[in-house]
């Protein structure tokens, strides 16, 4: 049956992405691998529904797609701004900027880097 074979292939892809999520040198590699795991889980739920003859499992796939997208952007916002609340759309100031501000005493330019794009 083609659906069971597709389900097994989704499992193989999930295990390979899990290897990258465990080995990834930067946090962004792990985030990318988690995104890929979410995609394979979405496909796996849809194929599982067809393999068992209950195609209504697609509703759960829709839910997983939305949660995966929002979760990826939540973690990216946490990396980019240093918080999940209202950070005013400012990027997290770099350590060099903080050191320069501590020396020069102006804090006006720290938050403007990349502002309005996050």
């Amino acid at each position, binding site marked *: 049956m*083609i*659906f069971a074979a597709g389900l097994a292939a989704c499992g193989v892809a999930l295990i390979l992405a899990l290897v990258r999520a465990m080995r990834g040198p930067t946090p962004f590699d792990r985030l*990318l691998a988690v*995104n*890929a795991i979410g995609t394979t889980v979405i496909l796996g739920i*849809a194929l599982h529904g067809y393999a068992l003859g209950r*195609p209504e499992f697609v509703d759960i796939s829709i839910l997983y*797609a939305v949660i995966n997208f929002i979760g990826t952007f939540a973690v990216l916002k946490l990396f980019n701004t240093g918080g999940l609340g209202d950070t005013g759309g400012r990027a997290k100031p770099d350590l060099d900027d903080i050191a320069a501000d501590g020396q020069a005493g102006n804090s006006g330019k720290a938050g403007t880097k990349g502002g309005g794009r996050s």
Partner: protein
Amino acid sequence: MTMLVEIVSGLFILLGVIALITGSLGLVKLPDLFSRTHAVGMMDTAGVGFIILGLIVYEGFTLVSVKLALVGIFLFFTSPIATHAVAQVALRSGVKPQLDDDGGKDGGS
């Protein structure tokens, strides 16, 4: 007729599975974060697109196939946005792209 539908949907699912396995192999084997984003982007568009298309062909025109099309369209638009945002935030927070071949010493094997 049902035989033909099963063959066509099986071919689409096979193409999607090939794209999925290739993308995840690239996610493990490629040496650099930004090339890995390329692999994940292919996995999310080609793999999901072909597998969802195969399921739609198998299902016919019902409510479930409309929901499958919703999943496919949503992933087709949001997954490249997610991988692009990962690459943008990584570049802004100091991850250097590997521009030259250094013998595959970091994570290439």
